[in-house]
């Protein structure tokens, strides 16, 4: 057996009130991919930040090639040959691609000044070698989210590194780009690099990883070779119990048309969007990342202003000019970006829940705390929220629980249509099942659901019908009976147009 390049032992890290990591160990081997698996909040990203010099561990040792090292700064980690693609895109919108790749370690001239020419050339050749169709002197903010991830990747590869860490690298990538990434991982393996790969997607883990390590509540609970271990076993290690039905789709009674959209258009983002949504139905919206689904949903929700077309709900035409209008009409939206658009971090849970329903919990605009608490309790308990109290800052909750607060907030408004945009993105397998179960429950009660998702199994497992979008237009609408996933992928990629 080869020697590990990187060995961690006894690593602990606490934040005020949270024990993120406790006495964990990890080894990374050259030319092998190690998957790090664990629920949301298990401490995976915290470990990544310790390895890249952003956090310092409270205790424990790090050995690189057998030598003990300390990583006090991000720079120190660079120098020890550790590089990472972080979970959040941590790049600079206003700077060029080249500078994003080389910020902090740019080539210098004899006078110690930044050598822009050399930097651009090196960045360009790096991007070309990755097969990324990008020009080094474009500004980052002009790129789509997927291209940004490629820049992040290029940045990670721009340093001569032995250890490459990827924290959920595929969360925002489309199918094709994910495939490209797999090829790249293979290449890195061949070059003998040690790779740490963090993901919530099991198909992916089984595809790229050689070894695995499982974290639960900040502790290491198991490790082994992927080939010798079944998925069930890993899931059991992860959550401490078994998870059965991941897509517990219960067929609901499909009723009359509730929402119908005709020819909705926007000057630059989408055109000619028409579909109908029936009572008790889950309508899936599939497409490659960047297909424009979010923009359409935000137009329904009154955030984006469409330039043409009509939205009809219960036979009444509406033209929402703000989210408040949409909510009043019965359309609510669970956004993709939880932290930025979903919850108001800084406000307690109960105030987040009551925010859109203040009219109901107050008497002539004067707050009634008792009513607010009652409302919040009803809906959060129904969703089985894990929280110490309702007065707790929502920012202290884990991502999955924050998502529940957002859903609770909307249920409290008695909506007609609920739009969920990537509802399980970055959510661990246990919480994911809960969200899916809950969607079934919603339609069971006669609501209609629009579910935007880029995950094929989720779309296939949950939707009654699927709308596929491509480059701002509807590329096809399919009934989910005997639907072949290949059809969806090819329609989304524009390889096949819908055979009517």
């Amino acid at each position: 057996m080869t020697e590990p390049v990187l060995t961690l032992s006894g690593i602990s890290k606490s934040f005020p009130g949270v024990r993120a990591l406790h006495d964990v160990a990890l080894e990374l081997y050259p030319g092998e991919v190690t998957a790090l698996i664990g629920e949301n909040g298990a401490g995976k990203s915290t470990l990544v930040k310790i390895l890249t010099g952003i956090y310092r561990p409270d205790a424990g040792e790090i050995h690189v090639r057998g030598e003990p090292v300390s990583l006090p700064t991000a720079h120190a980690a660079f120098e020890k040959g550790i590089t990472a693609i972080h979970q959040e895109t941590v790049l600079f919108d206003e700077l060029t691609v080249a500078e994003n790749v080389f910020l902090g370690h740019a080539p210098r001239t004899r006078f110690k000044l930044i050598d822009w020419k050399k930097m651009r050339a090196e960045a360009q050749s790096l991007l070309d070698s990755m097969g990324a169709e990008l020009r080094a002197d474009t500004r980052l903010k002009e790129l789509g989210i997927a291209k940004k991830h490629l820049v992040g990747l290029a940045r990670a590869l721009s340093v001569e590194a032995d250890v490459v860490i990827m924290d959920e690298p595929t969360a925002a990538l489309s199918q094709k780009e994910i495939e490209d990434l797999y090829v790249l991982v293979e290449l890195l393996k061949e070059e003998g690099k040690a790779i740490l790969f963090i993901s919530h997607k099991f198909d992916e883990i089984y595809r790229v990883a050689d070894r695995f390590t499982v974290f639960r509540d900040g502790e290491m609970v198991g490790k082994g070779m992927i080939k010798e271990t079944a998925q069930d076993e890993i899931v059991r290690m992860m959550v401490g119990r078994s998870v059965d039905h991941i897509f517990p789709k219960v067929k609901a009674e499909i009723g009359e048309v509730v929402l119908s959209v005709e020819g909705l258009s926007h000057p630059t983002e989408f055109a000619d969007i028409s579909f109908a949504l029936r009572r008790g139905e889950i309508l899936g919206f599939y497409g490659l990342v960047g297909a424009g689904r979010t923009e359409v949903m935000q137009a329904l929700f009154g955030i984006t202003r469409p330039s043409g077309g009509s939205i009809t709900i219960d036979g009444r035409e509406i033209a929402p000019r703000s989210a408040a209008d949409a909510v009043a009409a019965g359309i609510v939206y669970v956004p993709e970006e939880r932290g930025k658009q979903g919850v108001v971090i800084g406000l307690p849970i109960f105030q987040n829940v009551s925010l859109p329903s203040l009219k109901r919990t107050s008497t002539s605009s004067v707050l009634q705390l008792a009513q607010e608490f009652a409302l919040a309790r009803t809906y959060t308990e129904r969703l089985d929220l894990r929280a110490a109290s309702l007065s707790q800052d929502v920012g202290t909750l884990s991502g999955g629980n924050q998502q529940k607060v957002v859903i609770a907030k909307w249920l409290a408004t008695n909506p007609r249509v609920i739009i969920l945009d990537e509802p399980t993105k970055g959510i661990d397998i246990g919480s994911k099942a809960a969200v899916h179960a809950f969607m079934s429950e919603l339609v069971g009660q006669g609501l209609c659901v629009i579910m935007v998702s880029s995950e094929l199994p989720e779309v296939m497992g949950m939707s009654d019908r699927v709308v596929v979008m491509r480059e701002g237009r509807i590329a096809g609408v399919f009934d989910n009976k005997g639907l072949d996933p290949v059809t969806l992928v090819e329609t989304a990629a524009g390889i096949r147009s819908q055979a009517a």
Partner: protein
Amino acid sequence: MTDAAETTHRHIPDRLDNPIKSAVLSWETLLVLVAVVIFILNSLASPYFLNAWSLSDLTFNFTEKAVIALAMALLITSGEIDLSVAAIIALASTLMGMAVQWGVPTPGLVAIGIGVGLACGAFNGALVTGLKLPSIVVTIGTMSLFRGISYAILGDRAYGGYPSDFSFVGQGYVWWVISFELVLFVFAAVLFWFALHRTNFGRQIFAIGNNAVAAQFSGVRVARIKFVLFCLTGLMSGIAAVMLTARLGSTRPSIAQGWELEVITMVVLGGVNILGGAGSITGVVLAALIMGLVTFGLGLLNVPGIVMSIFIGGLLITVIALPILYRMWRERRA
């Protein structure tokens, strides 16, 4: 968690911490302590301090600024700022002075002062919310613009000759040593306290200040509320203009020069987070009182105003730094 059919849910309590305990540890308590200490120091340092008339005169040092600070507190809590308030006073006062020359009686003058304030606030609000511009730079601009218009109108002249009943607003006493200005301020403070802490409007302000995007995505009409807050700040500046003009009995374009920073200092000292999302009216009222106590107390010792401002500046930084230092000290020990 996986079983949706499960009906028994775990109970989530409303709150864990004792509200009395958290009230004791609050910012307001710190301010009350500071105010009491300054009050005692003042009484020890000057034999003239503990006197009904002195204490009454003291309130004139802050009432007008504090009236604006009430509205500014709401605005800053929502994540915006208005640097043009003092310039609004100048413009409102100038136009009132102009109206006097046309023989407008007192009620008309009050209406003009308040109306001009409101219009200026609406102008700021429209630029910030309509064109989505950062409020700090917009109001640096309107600060020059509004006062500049005053200069353009008045030049080297002054307006005077305000009717005698007008002066009651700034100089009158309601009862014994209780001035009309003080009563007006207390009334406004109660109103603003209620609006911020007890109504839907106030709740929405906190939501916007913590995260305007998420608030918008929760159905809060963010632009409309911000616009209203700018109007409100303008309106209160207009009221302050009426009070100050009535107290001075004359108008020059340089009136209330430099007040914007004092008002903001008052708000920040009152514990309102300059980045938005947190604050209380009680804190602002206490901060106004503290600033009045400091300036008046040092005034009794004939300390020059500029030295007082060192005290105020130092107080601002110290009071903000103290809780942070305390927290750091506690973390280090833990």
